[in-house]
């Protein structure tokens, strides 16, 4: 019956959505921020431990749909040990990919996130993908909250 949603609910996304590996606060985290999607009640809190200009480790706590959780989990995986500049660029690329379905200049890190691109067929779900990234950037910018609408 649901064959046509298998693009979005792919096995990678379902695994990350149901059994995330980064759904915890990293020991000794030094920044955190919340992301809220007020229209639907989703909330993600992202925690990072920095190491100079890099994110050493990231984790999250969330209530939300499978897409949001999968996105948060894949994000934490992707940003570990990455320079903060690179993370900002990645955030833009993920947002673009979620909107368009295309993955421009798709390097290895982005390729891991590629299953999320299927969300571009579901316009009102795009925010589910971008919400964790908003929270991450807010944490890196020293803010406490962000929203995604």
């Amino acid at each position: 019956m649901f064959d046509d949603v298998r693009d979005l609910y792919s096995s990678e996304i379902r695994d990350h959505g149901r059994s995330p590996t980064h759904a915890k606060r990293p020991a000794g985290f030094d920044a955190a921020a919340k992301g809220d999607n007020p229209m639907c009640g989703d909330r993600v809190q992202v925690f990072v431990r920095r190491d100079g200009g890099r994110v050493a480790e990231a984790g999250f706590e969330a209530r939300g749909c499978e897409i949001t959780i999968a996105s948060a989990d894949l994000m934490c995986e992707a940003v570990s040990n990455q320079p903060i500049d690179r993370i900002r660029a990645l955030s833009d690329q993920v947002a673009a990919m979620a909107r368009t379905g295309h993955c421009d200049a798709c390097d290895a890190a982005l390729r891991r996130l590629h299953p999320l691109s299927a969300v571009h067929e579901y316009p009102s779900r795009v925010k589910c993908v971008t919400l964790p990234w908003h929270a991450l950037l807010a944490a890196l910018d020293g803010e406490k909250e962000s929203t995604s609408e």
Partner: protein
Amino acid sequence: MNMMTKNLVESGFDVQRIRDDFPILSQQIRGKPLVFLDSAASAQKPRPVIDAMVNAMETQYANVHRGLHWMSERTTDAYEGTRDAVARLINAPSRDEIVFTKNTTEAINLVAYSYGRGIMRPGQAVVISEMEHHANLVPWQMLRDACGIELRVAPVTDAGELDMVGLEALLVDRKVGLVAITHMSNVLGTVVPAVRVAALAHEYGAKVLFDGSQAVVHRAVDVQAIDADFYVFTGHKLYGPTGIGVLWARRELLEAMPPFMGGGDMIGTVTFERSTWAEVPHKFEAGTPAIIEAIGLKAAIEYVEAIGFDAITAHEGRLTDHALARLSAIPGLRVLGAAQDRGGVFSFTMQGAHAHDIATLLDRQGIAVRAGNHCAEPLSRRLGVDSSARASTGIYTTEAEIDVLADTLLRVREFFT
């Protein structure tokens, strides 16, 4: 479509005939028939509403009230005619007590500004309930923060009913100037015992406002029988156009209240030094009103009146019984609220599946439901849910559509477990 057409003719209420009046219901979504179960957010529009608006724009349109010419006189008659229709719908004592607004939200804000800031005094309190839509919560918070008026919240029981003992406890100190309560919850479907609420409020010297956004769609409303002081609703949920809502209030309240917005049509005479206000209800209708929308609303009211609220309520009762039976048979599914008196609104959660994911899967089958907190975030918190999916019915909803929903939810459950 076979599934959709079976069993549609119920005694005395020909749902297929009704469906034929709603052009949108024959749309397909991704090749599947539209199963529109989001009427509590906004209802679809029947042909007579569309036709009334088109007819106005094609044959009889001009600005109202100020014109000495044919088009303006006829348009004014049509616009003003809606006041009579609304007065009849809710049994208001006078057509002059009907104020047109943009929607329920503006109607409540009007009361919060005009009655709240204009008549109430610091130290007084407003009572709302735990199951209010944000439209009947945020304006009172803004009033509280601007004017030192206390905001009290009446509890709801675990069954999703208004806790009348809890409500009374908030009233006993007689500081409450206004009780503002939904007449029917847009999340739980709970119908609030308006007569009792009004009597209680009056016993302690408070006025009472009912948010009838949902109730007016599902029940015959009689503001005099309820003994309400204010009653508000919105056109687009009553099968009417967007852009038009209604505030009814007792004449003496409207007369005592200062105007909310200033502009054309709401004034008596204007000098730079001082202006005087027009008579009620015009005092509260500044600027060019939603003329075409008022004309559409009249057609919507006539449409539901022609069907009759007895038939509408009976149909909805059957649908509700059927929906509750089917939904509660789905393992892991929890329907929120269990009020004795409830209408066709069913919010639910499903173990192992988030409301968004449910909604997306249903959408792919052509089934439109809502997911989230339904503009009632504090109620979600009260019920201990982050978000829920909500199916809601209209006069065009069939038992077969409820079956499609339930059957599909069983598959959704398999998908997610």
